[in-house]
């Protein structure tokens, strides 16, 4: 069984998912960060593949992408780094990238590498859902990989329901119409009415909230409306390259005590 589905069977509240960019701050940080995170109360790990043109990302993740690419990170290296940990991996790993990376690497090759290295799911924000259904859904099933789709406060109810049926693992609720890492009014009217709307819809898939979660308060708030939350930019900012492990421990402690 897919590890993500398994996770939500075991635990369905206060799920903490941490996003970071592979190869940042140093090229070999990827494995260190994963190892540290999985010994902490973290339930899911989302590894960002650095990209030259991350359209949906704000300045923090743009910057980590840039440094990672400068460090020499590439797909083959990333897969081999994750593979190293395969047997020790307890927490499901999701890989996030842009469609051109999957496309250029060769879709089948990419998915095969995901499977071999122990990746459980993918987030590709610019992959159109219809293309996924027509071209990739069966392939994802074959490799038992989850494809996670996003919905935003602007997505209408019928599309939310549609995407909640296509998504596998969980549905990613983008808290506001923004790029990542933007300071959003997390408790604003628009957010609350969006979360309330989602809560009322007949969705059986687990839901995680992302974008704008940056501390204990916002994480707790996301847990009120969904099965948990995803933290990215604020985690990346907290990383201290001279003492990676300590900075990670300190950060996670500040979220879940």
């Amino acid at each position, binding site marked *: 069984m897919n590890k993500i589905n398994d996770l939500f069977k075991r635990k369905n509240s206060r799920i903490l998912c941490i996003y970071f960019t592979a190869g940042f701050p140093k090229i070999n940080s990827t494995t260190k960060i994963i190892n540290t995170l999985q010994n902490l109360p973290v339930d899911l790990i989302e590894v960002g593949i650095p*990209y*030259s043109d991350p359209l949906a990302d*704000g300045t923090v993740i743009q910057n980590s992408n840039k440094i990672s690419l400068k460090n020499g990170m590439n797909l083959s290296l990333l897969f081999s780094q994750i593979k190293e940990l395969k047997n020790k991996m307890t927490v499901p790993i999701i890989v996030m990238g842009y469609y*051109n990376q999957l496309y*250029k690497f060769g879709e089948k090759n990419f998915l095969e590498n995901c499977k071999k290295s122990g990746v459980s799911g993918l987030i590709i924000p*610019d992959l159109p859902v219809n293309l996924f259904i027509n071209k990739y859904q069966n392939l994802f099933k074959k490799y038992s990989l989850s494809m996670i789709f*996003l919905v935003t406060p602007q997505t209408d109810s019928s599309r939310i329901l549609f995407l909640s049926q296509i998504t596998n693992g969980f549905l990613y609720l983008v808290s506001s119409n923004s790029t990542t890492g933007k300071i959003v009014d997390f408790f604003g009217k628009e957010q609350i009415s969006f979360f309330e709307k989602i809560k009322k819809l007949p969705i059986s898939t687990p839901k995680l909230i992302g974008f704008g979660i940056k501390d204990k308060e916002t994480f707790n708030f996301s847990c009120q409306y969904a099965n948990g939350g995803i933290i990215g930019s604020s985690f990346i900012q907290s990383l201290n390259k001279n003492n990676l492990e300590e900075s990670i421990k300190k950060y996670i402690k500040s979220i879940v005590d």
Partner: protein
Amino acid sequence: MKNKFFVDDNGYYGEFGGSFIPEMLYNNIKELQKNYKNFIRSVQFQTLYKKILKNYVGRPTPLFFCKKYSKKYKTKIFFKREDLNYTGSHKINNAIGQSLLAKQLNKKTIIAETGAGQHGVATATVCALMDLKCVIFMGETDINRQYTNVLRMKSLGAKVIPVCSGDKTLKDAVNEAIRYWINHPESYYLIGSTVGPHPYPQMVADIQSVISEEIKIQLKEMYGSCYPNYVIACIGGGSNAAGSFYHFLDNDSVNLIAVEAAGHGIKTKKTAASIHCGSKGILHGSMTFLLQNEDGQVIPAYSISPGLDYPGIGPMFANLFIKKRVKFLYSTDKEALREGYELIRSEGIIPALESAHALASLKKISFKKEDTVVVILSGRGDKDINVYEKFLTKNLSYDE
């Protein structure tokens, strides 16, 4: 108009095009897909659009028969003078067309990217005219090399936001404009070329098609036939080529030549020739040809002309290349400079460095005496005068 080279009902040109966008932009793109076609084809739009083009922009632009060039190349050479449009290039056509759509959709703020500053100036101008708020994204590198255009945009009331990400040129300006659009979905993104997610490439081509519409009428008046033997245009994203080829695409007797910017050369890493040096992939929301490495990382483009300094090409042209309907040539920085300078001294016309790339291809084609050749002068070169000056000084010192 049905045409096998235009976008299909699913938003594709053969295997190219589509709409590869994050969910945050889904509604915005849907809104455009739903509305643009009917609006742009409506009598209301066409009447107003043509009226503004005539009375404000000064269209139709002349089709100038060039005696000296005709003699030199032993054929009949015409220049389509898009440089004579108000604001100095063909970009104003698109800015007007899309601003009218933005008004129709009740948008109050226009955002746009710019490379050379021509699209930025055109957009800022139209926004002043139509009382729209205007935000322009421009790479820092381009701000430095096209500073007069920055001053023009600012004086027109536009907010110019310098882009410091990537290599700080056109591609990065598009990225930043898209990011701003994600954060401000109530605004209208007025994209300047035939790039981006569906429906932008076709919409921009439809609006720019006025260029080839005029060429047909002008040739008919002079020769009785609408169809030239060649149409030659420079190509970056493709808006000027799309507008110039549009009404000739379904007539195979017209040779369509698109000239890419090769920068230092197509065998070097400093180039912007996406067809010659690129491979298939996704850039700015559409499947097309782009400069990229084996991991799909986009390789920064390079060209002396900021308007062609883009690592991709419109999806319509990726398809026209595969279907062999358009022939792609390239010109280097040096060739463009030399031929641009040649035109200045021969005809008293200062062409934009972008347009100079099209001129530089004339030497590479063998024309027949009776051929009718239309070269598109997409913009004027006032903005590039410092570059021409430097080139001149350097070359004079070589001669000495």
